[in-house]
């Protein structure tokens, strides 16, 4: 019998004490992490495999999840990265010509707990008004002392360097060896679609660990350097700014996305801050200040570079190129003299709209000039 009533009761306990009831889709160990919500309507596989979601329990506002299963092609990394998932309705079956298997068993195999039948809208509204916070997914109807203990032991996201955790430990390459351009990508939690897009732009990418010294990169004489997206607090990736400054000052074109963007900011004197509930979804309007054009962008970040359209305190060398139309936060910057560009949103999408994809070809142009 698949009626939800027959399934095992579970809960999500938030650090402010709010308790949400649901059903556990499969057996899994309790999970504790920061609870965030994303409004992406499609692309759950990409979300769950995005390393930027490391250390987070993701609430899907889209109510029906699992409908098209999972496949071999749409992963953004080697497997699920999230700590836990909260949904309203988990589909027991799937249908899609590319679907290889069902979402539930795939997650269960990875040991990721899924709490279903939750009033996810209530939860989302709660996180929106109270801010994201830590939470624990546990078994049973009422919160247990164990769960509370786990919650208390869970570190805050602020000050947490997760990029170093998810980064590749050894370098690897992506794309054909004969490609005309060579990019070195710092892996803070890189999404595969970024690599796919570089490849389609005719690039060979060497992905290096996040703590690779700049000299090791410069030695390779890359055409450009890429600073990847990734999880955690940018300010905690303390070794990155010096590296980035060193490379930038050599005049090598640099592109940063998401965490990479925040690190560029830190490198040139800006500070970062934690947003109350972040930007996660595929519908965020961003204005390109140079043209006035509005891009509908894919986003996934809890931290942002402090500042506004008027400027970036502490970083006079940087200028704002993009802003978010919902809340006015900084969405893109460039260095006034050096070929350094970065965006807070995800031009590689996956999941999300492709409006910002031309950024990759723009970066290629910069490589040509460099």
């Amino acid at each position, binding site marked *: 019998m*698949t*009626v*939800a*009533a027959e399934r095992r009761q579970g809960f999500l306990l938030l650090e402010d004490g709010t308790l*949400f*009831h649901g059903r556990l889709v499969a057996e899994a160990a309790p999970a504790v992490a920061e609870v965030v*919500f994303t*409004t*992406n*309507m*499609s*692309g759950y*596989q990409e979300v769950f495999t995005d390393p930027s979601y490391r250390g987070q329990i993701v609430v899907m*506002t*889209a*109510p*029906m999840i699992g*409908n*098209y299963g999972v*496949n071999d*092609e*749409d992963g953004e990394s080697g497997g699920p990265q999230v700590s836990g998932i909260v949904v*309203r*309705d988990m*589909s*027991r*079956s*799937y*249908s*899609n*010509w*590319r679907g290889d298997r069902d979402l539930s068993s795939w997650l269960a195999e990875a040991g990721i707990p899924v709490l279903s*039948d939750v*009033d*996810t*809208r*209530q939860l*989302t*509204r709660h996180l*929106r*008004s109270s801010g994201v916070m830590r939470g624990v997914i546990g078994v049973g109807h009422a919160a247990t002392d164990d769960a509370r203990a786990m919650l208390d032991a869970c570190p805050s996201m602020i000050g947490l360097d997760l990029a170093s955790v998810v980064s590749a430990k050894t370098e690897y390459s992506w794309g054909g060896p004969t490609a005309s351009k060579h990019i070195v990508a710092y892996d803070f939690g890189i999404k595969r679609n970024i690599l796919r897009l570089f490849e389609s732009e005719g690039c060979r990418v060497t992905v290096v660990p996040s703590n690779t010294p700049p000299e090791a990169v410069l030695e390779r004489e890359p055409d450009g350097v890429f600073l990847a997206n990734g999880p955690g607090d940018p300010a905690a990736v303390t070794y990155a700014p010096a590296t980035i400054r060193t490379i930038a000052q050599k005049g090598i074109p640099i592109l940063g996305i998401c965490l990479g963007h925040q690190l560029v900011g830190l490198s040139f004197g800006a500070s970062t801050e934690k947003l109350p*509930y972040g930007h996660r*979804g*595929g*519908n*965020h*309007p961003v*204005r390109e200040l140079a043209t*006035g*054009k*509005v891009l*509908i962008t894919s986003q996934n970040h809890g931290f942002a570079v402090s500042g506004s359209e008027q400027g970036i305190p502490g970083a006079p060398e940087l200028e704002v190129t993009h802003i978010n*139309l*919902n809340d006015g936060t900084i969405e893109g910057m460039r260095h006034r003299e050096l070929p350094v560009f970065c965006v807070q949103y995800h031009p590689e*999408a*996956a*999941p*999300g*709209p*492709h409006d910002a994809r031309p950024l990759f070809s723009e970066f290629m142009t910069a490589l040509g000039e460099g």
Partner: protein
Amino acid sequence: MPRRSDLHKILVIGSGPIVIGQAAEFDYSGTQAARALREEGYEVVLINSNPATIMTDGEIADRTYIEPVTPEYAELVIARERPDALLPTMGGQTALNVAMELSARGVLARYGVELIGAKARAIEVAEDRQEFAAAMQRIGLKVPQGRIAHSWEEAQSIAEFTGYPAIIRPSFTLGGSGGGIAYNREEYEDIVRRGLAASPSSQVLIERSLLGWKEFELEVMRDHADNVVIVCSIENFDPMGVHTGDSITVAPAMTLTDREYQIMRDAACAVIREIGVEAGGCNIQFAVNPLDGEMIVIEMNPRVSRSSALASKATGFPIARIGAKLAIGYRLDEIPNDITKTTPASFEPVLDYVVVKCPRFAFEKFAKASPILTTQMKSVGESMAIGRTFKEALQKGLRALEIGRAGWEIGARLADDRLSDDSIESLRGALSTPTPERIFQIKRAMIAGMSLDQIHEITAIDRWFLDQLLELIEAERWFAGLTAIEPDHVRQMKRLGFSDRQLAEFRGETEAAARERRWRMGIRPVYKMVDTCAGEFPSSTPYLYSSYDVENESPRTGRKSVIILGSGPNRIGQGVEFDYMCVRAVLALREQGYETIMINSNPETVSTDYDTSDKLYFEPLTLEDVLEIVHRERPLGVIVQLGGQTPLKLTKGLGEAGVTILGTSPESIDIAEDRKRFEAIARDLGIRQPDAGTATSVEDAADAAARIGYPVLVRPSYVLGGRAMQIVYDEPSLREYFETAARVSEERPVLIDRFLEDAFEADVDAVSDGETVVIGGVMQHIEDAGIHSGDSACVLPPYRIDESDIDAMKRHTVALAKALGVVGLINVQFAVKDGIVYVLEVNPRGSRTIPFVSKAIGVPLASVAARVMLGETLEDVGFTREIVPPFVSVKEAVFPFTKFREFDPLLGPEMRSTGEVMGISDSFGSAFAKAQLSADNALPLDGTIFITVNDGDKPTVTPIARRFHEMGFHLYATDGTARYLTRRGIPTRAIRKVHEGRPNGLDLLKNGDIQLLINTPLGKHAQFDDYQLRQAAIGQRVSYTTTMSAASAACDAILSLRSRAASVRSLQEWHEMVREEGLAQEQL
């Protein structure tokens, strides 16, 4: 960029009457557009012939022309008003076609009118199949492998290329009108020829069949700075082959991965750019091969549409409103999102719920019409439901259809599901052909043990959807097998969308008992907000839907509130008129300071616009759903008398549950419906009724009919729109009626009335505050007795009724309103025969004529009624005296006969019209002519008339024929009639009847030699002849009348058309005349 300051006056074209494929959604979009433009300070001029719309109410536009939506009349309006711009994208295909014609004729250039929203070139490319295919090729998108035919000869060679089945789509037609799927050569020829005739450009596109492919739609908007957003994705439950208007559809798309969705999104952005919609919206349809994901662009509509109305309601993103703002120069990022107020409109709505739209059909009205669903739209209305899951939304959507299903449940009888038996074989056969009942046949198939894969193979419906359905069946079985019901069990079932009635059936209980138990358990729905952003931003717009979830977002405000029950899905007999009344009531009560709460399930309406009422509950109109909202809101009361039968049917249940019904009491409503009790009242008042009886068996009926005397009018009790009502001339026909049209039993009594042959009929609408009754208007029907009042043309004020009879009708109306204790609206239907006034029917509620009367007299009667229902007197409201306007208003009905081609277009006591138009002028002839033109029955100014009438009508037709002869028309008639007329000095040429050989009348019609057909039924033996003639007239778009009185009116109209140039005048000017007349009367 701010709004354009070079424009001052903007013309908006409406969509005209409600027809299949073009319904009330354009009232919604037109109203939104007009409001959006006026709030920017523009002067708005409007043309629309449909009086039953909010958009044509005097205060929506600065100048409102209730005139035919044709290039000629639009030109007259342009010449008179000199607008700077024309917004053609708000009135469906009709408006677009008129705008294109105005552009082609050079009218726009001559008067310096700019097309805004979509340029002529963009419209051309989108609408012309060949140009569209070329455009798609340029941007690397596939279109169905189709080719254009301009003739049958060309089509023949194309068929060799496409093979069968082949899809035929005529260019520039509405709702796929004239198109279809051909499975063999014979059907192919038939459909191609029909399509060529239907297309204004004599073009059809012939495509390879994509039957069984998945079908999707995207709603896209673009501003002049080239910013593009996708408002909504829609996935069709029914795969390709069923018109999207006839499909169950789901938003957002359910079975697309992000990769596939983004490919589609990229394609949509490319399409709107390539077609060149510069500032506005469009709808793009895609087909996707379920085996490999191959994607094909089916079509694109460069305007607001039924789908965009649905998408607006599904997301909270007001496409028409935003479209109007884009058309006048704003960019998307300059327009605020109305719902959140804090974020801009340049974003893409995200849904944290699932929306299901279910089509509503009217095949029971068109017995001969094929119920098979194809690429030509046949549904007449739709319900929309919102739930947190597909399962919940589907069950709500199906019960919101008001077709007797409490959710996804099989019919009581096999026939209800269009089945003769439920063997696997017969189910397989049924499932292979899409019909309105297929969704229920699927359930029977699952119950009978057919596997999901088998059902998928036959129907091509996606397995995911089928498995969702299977989950519902499993849940039913689980619930039915429980030994004891725990609260959690009930909660789980409610979360799957099951209604109390369904739960009761699973357990063999009554609905009341199931509800009682649920309430005892404290299980109630909560209400969630539709906020465009899935909760990411705060929102205070109370657009709500129910779900059995945890958090409620609909707090009571503490203000004095009133619930107005809407009219549910459009259907024949209950259309936009009722929505009009509900909206008027809402507006009036808002103004009086009440908190207005609207409940409705119809996405095609103004009432379900989130800013019409203070609070909108998008919910099915069932007792359960309404009681839950009442429980939550605790209103002063509920208004049931404006939404037609839908709310009326709930009155009893609401009353029993202790809910206050505002206005006329449930008791009075019941008396009016109860023959015996009503007869007693009429007798007491000395008001005559036709002899009548009630029968509970066939024998009973025969006895009653014999006593009353034939002809009699028979019909089941408690029906809407004259459902299954027939005039029966003898006993064998009566017995046949019970075999074919209606059942009779103790539970289902049949009403039998004497039929007043050759009587003429009138409708009176009035409003009462319980003390005073004021007549709204007296409308004389043009058609004789026996034609349903909703199908008859009518005229206000009456033009050929004795004053004394009119006075008697008014007196009777006042007396009946008082006797019934009416507070609010009342409608009385009268027949006058041999100087005696009979009451045929009394409806103590708002009738479908209210919008027409309101426009004719310049008083919004539904607003007056709403205020009276809340305790004001007519004196307080300022409506104390009948207004007889110093001009003539004619209402004409509009029929779906071109869609149901198998159907005989004869009028009868069963209502079949889908919409109405209004003609206003200073003479009857001219007003009638305008109404005919608006109803797409343009009368000829000269030419040849073919008369074929039954013997009884010969004397009546004589003076009419004489007048036509005197005007210079050539007359043809069948042999007998020709001799009869010629003998009376009217030269008439004889022509053979169809069965008499050739050439005959049918040949003349088909050759285009006839400009007007006057045909009354010749009796049974000639039925087929007549039918063919009328069919040919419709096919050839020849004007026709099927009653003598209409022929006479047509004669008046043609005389008027010939004697004076066409002219237009705005509703505001007409109403000014009413005011002046009123003042003059007061001074007397």
